[in-house]
């Protein structure tokens, strides 16, 4: 909302510098987003108020005229092209050298006088655009009648416009009076409310119009008055100026009064042409299904049965609280006005304006929750202006149908609650002053209670803590000390999945992988590239109704697509090794319930490994780099994975393995199928692995399986065996590792796999390095050889292994 400081000063004295005022308002009331100073560049000596005393034709140009202007010091002649120039106008006048904006380009400039079509001009009568007030350049700016001639323009028109963002529950702050009340409370000022006096000189209103409310749950109050003897014309210059500063366009005196009073009080009003109201009857009722009305913006709108309409004797004439109808609009011929000031249920207005996609100044105020007492306040204020500004004759009496009347709300506030919530005691006199300044009626009930009556314009204040906030914000949160929480700590909550995720993150980083975080929404097409057609869960991701963009329309059921996208994008940037990982969720739909959010580590790697130089590189990363990373992670967690060949959509058969820990599959590692990679614009071999965090966590030891260090040395020996080429090396290794004999344990590692000359066709040779160790003695070479012999025999039985000759 735009707050003109000059206008604000009508209701409260403001002496603070603008920076200080803005800071205080932001601290305690609403956020001041900025401010604009009007007239900052108007030189008081060069831009002044003047009066047009004569207008004559220009001898050499039809479009131009010669204005004789009284500047307060002298009378001068200027050339002027404005069509609205007229004798008697008070205007803004600039002398040579004044800083202005160019009327055509809008650029800042300095006034340089020269003859125009052969006639000297002593100065310039200014438009709003030239003054930097608005873009208006059709005619000159006309100042309010009675503005003193000869004074600097900055003194009468200079202003500061605050841009303030208010809260969703404070309709009262959207009115100047409500805003001024806050400023008064904040600065120790006194609120001056605008006059609501008027004389009712017309016929009784009851004979002119009747009002009934058929939906009292949606319409809590409806007031109506009638003003006769109106001549439609422009509103006074001061009113137009204020409307413009508030960002509204002046229309005519009647509409301007309704807007002005809305800006002043926060309460929307609506003026009908009384003579267009059929049956002289107003009904507030729910729309009949399919009912239609052309609203003031010229759009035909259709309503549902929960929308509140304002109707006359024959049909709709307005959408309650949102916009009036074109059929009863005030027009140039209007002489009698029916003024509606009503109160509607906030949620209903919100719903209607949302469904109609029609947000208006009125609906924005109603939906925040206006107090119903404001209706009569605004009605009276408007009638005062109709009388003083339009010379209207006001019918006697105001129709007031008020089914929703409630007694004022009273809240009992324990003084101790203030300290309980804020952490400081606020003295009684401060509580009384603060609440009193904000319009609350406070009774101190000694020793330690307040009985507080809430003003009608503050329906947002419902409970004692709402009062604590009122006290706290005006008293100043800067008075709160910074204290530390006391009391006992809650019991620790173990979250093994979260812990494992963080551990995996650290391990991946330690293994040289860069963490990425991808958007969790993607497309069905991308998910289809990396999920199995038979996987009905992952192939049916949850969609969103209103994605920010088409490429973010489905919640990902796999991390692989975004991992490959990240890989491709970074491959375009640089050559060399790429190792990326993300830990995120797969969102797996569940019928009728929230999806399962399944934590997964997904890593991709490829390119040539680090070589001697930063350019070029060594041999390409491959499957065993990916597998090695998995093994290292599992090893760090104290477990060993069991890898078995697997097939998986999007991965290359024969180059893919699943791995299990304990009885459960805990992840997958493999080469991305070249066709899949190509679909992501990756032309090189790229490898991927996933760790399924929840499956892994179930099989992790609570503590690492610690073993005391043996005091006895191990005996190291090698063993090369020949087996069928189809025997998995992992199985041979597994068996060797599990071999135990008479208190001797075996550690085993493979160090070669060989096929070729020296090994029969269809066979392969596996070289094992073995370490035998006993817990209780130093092994002799003879003992170790016997254990090795036993192992060889077992390998022979299990895999047909023979000692390589």
């Amino acid at each position, binding site marked *: 909302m735009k707050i003109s400081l000059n206008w604000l000063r009508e209701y409260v004295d403001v002496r603070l510098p603008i920076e200080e005022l803005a*800071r205080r308002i*932001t*601290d*305690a009331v609403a*956020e001041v987003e900025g401010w604009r100073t009007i007239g900052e560049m108007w030189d008081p000596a060069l831009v002044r108020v003047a009066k047009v005393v004569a207008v004559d034709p220009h001898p050499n140009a039809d479009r131009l005229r010669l204005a004789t202007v009284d500047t307060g010091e002298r009378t001068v002649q200027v050339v002027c092209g404005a069509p609205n120039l007229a004798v008697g106008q008070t205007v803004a006048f600039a002398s040579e050298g004044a800083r202005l904006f160019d009327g055509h380009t809008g650029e800042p400039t300095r006034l340089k006088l020269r003859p125009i079509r052969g006639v000297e001009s002593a100065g310039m009568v200014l438009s709003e655009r030239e003054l930097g007030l608005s873009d208006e350049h059709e005619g000159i700016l006309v100042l309010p009648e009675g503005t003193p001639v000869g004074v600097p323009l900055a003194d009468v028109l200079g202003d500061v416009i605050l841009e303030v963002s208010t*809260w*969703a*529950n*404070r309709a009262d702050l959207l009115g100047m009076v409500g805003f001024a009340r806050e400023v008064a409370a904040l600065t120790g000022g006194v609120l001056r409310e605008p006059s609501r006096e008027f004389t009712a000189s017309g016929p009784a209103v009851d004979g002119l119009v009747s009002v009934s409310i058929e939906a009292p749950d949606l319409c809590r109050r409806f007031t109506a008055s009638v003003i006769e003897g109106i001549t439609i014309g422009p509103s006074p210059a001061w009113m137009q100026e204020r409307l413009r500063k508030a960002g509204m366009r002046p229309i005519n005196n009647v509409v301007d009064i309704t807007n002005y009073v809305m800006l002043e009080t926060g309460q929307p009003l609506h003026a009908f042409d009384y003579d267009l109201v059929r049956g002289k009857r107003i009904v507030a009722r729910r729309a009949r299904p399919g009912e239609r009305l052309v609203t003031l913006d010229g759009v035909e709108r259709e309503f549902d049965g929960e929308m509140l309409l304002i109707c006359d004797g024959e049909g709709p004439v307005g959408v309650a609280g949102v916009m009036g109808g074109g059929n009863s609009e005030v027009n140039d011929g209007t002489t009698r006005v029916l003024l509606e000031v009503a109160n509607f249920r*906030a*949620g209903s207005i919100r*719903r209607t304006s949302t469904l109609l996609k029609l947000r208006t100044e009125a609906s*924005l105020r109603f939906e*925040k929750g206006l107090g119903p007492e404001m209706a009569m306040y605004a009605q009276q204020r408007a009638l005062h202006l109709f009388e003083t500004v339009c010379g209207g004759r006001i019918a006697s009496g105001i129709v007031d149908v008020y089914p929703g009347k409630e007694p004022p709300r009273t809240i009992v506030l324990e003084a101790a609650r203030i300290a*309980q*919530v*804020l*952490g400081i005691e606020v003295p009684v006199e401060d509580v009384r002053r603060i609440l009193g300044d904000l319009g609350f009626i406070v009774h101190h009930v000694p020793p330690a209670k307040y009985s507080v009556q809430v003003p009608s314009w503050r329906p947002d204040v419902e409970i004692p*803590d709402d009062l604590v*906030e009122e006290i*706290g*914000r005006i008293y100043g*949160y800067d008075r*709160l*000390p*910074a*204290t530390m*929480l*006391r*009391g*006992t700590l*809650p019991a620790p*909550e173990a*979250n093994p999945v979260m812990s494992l995720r*963080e551990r995996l993150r650290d391990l991946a*980083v*330690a*293994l*040289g992988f860069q*963490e990425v*975080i991808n958007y969790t*929404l993607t497309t069905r097409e991308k998910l289809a590239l990396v999920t199995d057609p038979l996987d009905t869960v992952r192939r049916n991701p*949850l*969609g*969103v*109704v*209103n994605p*920010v963009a088409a490429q973010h329309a489905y919640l990902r059921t796999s991390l692989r697509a975004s991992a490959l996208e990240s890989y491709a*994008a*970074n491959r375009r*940037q640089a050559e060399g090794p790429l*190792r990326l990982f993300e830990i995120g969720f797969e*969102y797996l739909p569940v019928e009728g319930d*929230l*999806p399962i*959010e399944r934590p997964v580590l997904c890593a991709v790697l490829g390119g040539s490994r*680090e070589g001697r*130089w*930063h350019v070029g*590189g060594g041999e390409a990363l491959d499957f065993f780099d990916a597998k090695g990373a998995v093994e290292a992670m599992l090893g760090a967690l104290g477990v060993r994975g069991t890898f078995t060949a697997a097939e998986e959509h999007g991965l290359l058969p024969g180059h893919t393995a699943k791995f299990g820990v304990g009885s459960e599959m805990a992840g997958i590692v493999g080469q991305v199928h070249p066709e899949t990679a190509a679909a992501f614009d990756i032309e090189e071999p790229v490898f991927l692995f996933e760790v399924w965090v929840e499956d892994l966590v179930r099989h992790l030891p609570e503590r690492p399986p610690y073993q005391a260090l043996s005091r006895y040395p191990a005996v190291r020996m090698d063993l090369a065996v020949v087996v069928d080429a189809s025997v998995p090396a992992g199985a041979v290794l597994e068996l060797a590792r599990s071999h135990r004999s008479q208190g001797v344990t075996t550690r085993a590692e493979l160090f070669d796999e060989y096929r070729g000359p020296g090994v029969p066709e269809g066979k392969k040779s596996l070289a094992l390095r073995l370490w035998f160790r006993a817990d209780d003695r130093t092994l002799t070479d003879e003992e170790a050889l016997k254990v090795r012999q036993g192992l060889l025999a077992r390998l022979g039985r299990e895999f047909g292994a023979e000692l390589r000759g």
Partner: protein
Amino acid sequence: MTTETGSLARLEAEALAALEAAADDAALDRWRAEWLGRQDGRVTVLLRGIREVAPEERAAYGAAVNALKQTLEERLEERRQALKRAELERLAREGAIDVTLPGRPQPLGRLHPITRTLRDCLDAFRAMGFRVAEGPEVEWDRYNFDAARIPEDHPARDMWDTIWVNTLIDGKRRMLLRTHTTPNQIRVMERTPQPPVRVVVPGKCYRQEATDATHEWMLTQIEGLAVDEGVRMSDLKGVLYEWARAMFGTDRRIIFHHSYFPFVEPGVEMAIDCFICRGDGRQCHTCHGTGWIEILGAGMVHPEIIDNAGYDSSRVTGFAFGIGVERVAMLRWGIEDIRHFYSNDLRFLGQF
């Protein structure tokens, strides 16, 4: 006797001269074999010849030859050391490498800057006794809105532009991508039968919002919640003050502005003093010349929410806050565009 002694001295001089001439390990080994060799080293032979010496001279002879042997052994070791040193010196001098050549590239992983910032924040709160919990990203509207006192048809819903999940339940849309981590206030209290509650809940949130340098539709938030008897707004100030100092420097100052969030009462926004311009930069892009940087929303948990959790709001109070992790990361590193975070460009990620 004198003759013998004289010949031993000559022998020693000869041996040492030969030793001096030996220039490498092989030469030293040859020298050792010639003089000290077990079988027929010249000194060994002398020792063996003791039998031919007159009995009364044997003791003196033996001592003299043994002394010669010991001297030669010591000088041999010295010579060996000297040769080794000379070899290393030569290596350092002649085999010097160009130390300005680049080092061999090593694989280096890094955490995402959001992860780093998130962890630093959580660590600060853990140090103040907060536990860490989590809640679902895809959420029911009643947790995201209704339970947080943001009813349908309330303009406060405009504060959060929502991405809705396209699933109808009983003919209505009920599932959404949580717009904030606030639903976890409700969820945590639901599963905590009795206070105290002291928890931070990190996680992703989503907004139906056009992106620009300061707006992103996917966000990371940290929800904070402390509920117990005796929890005061001044405690909120103290906790956030410690957090701000941990994240932005010990000389940070904080202020609270009045604000409005339906789920807190009173509601505030917290700002920290601008550590970029230190309060006097009219041109400062970070604080826009105000000297203060708005950084998070907070407040005292609305008593209705306390009561709905089954606690007694007349005895139990609480505070809550919501931190935007991206904003914190942008401030601490001076990152100018929020869209960098999730575009995963290594040129960006490699800087943290």
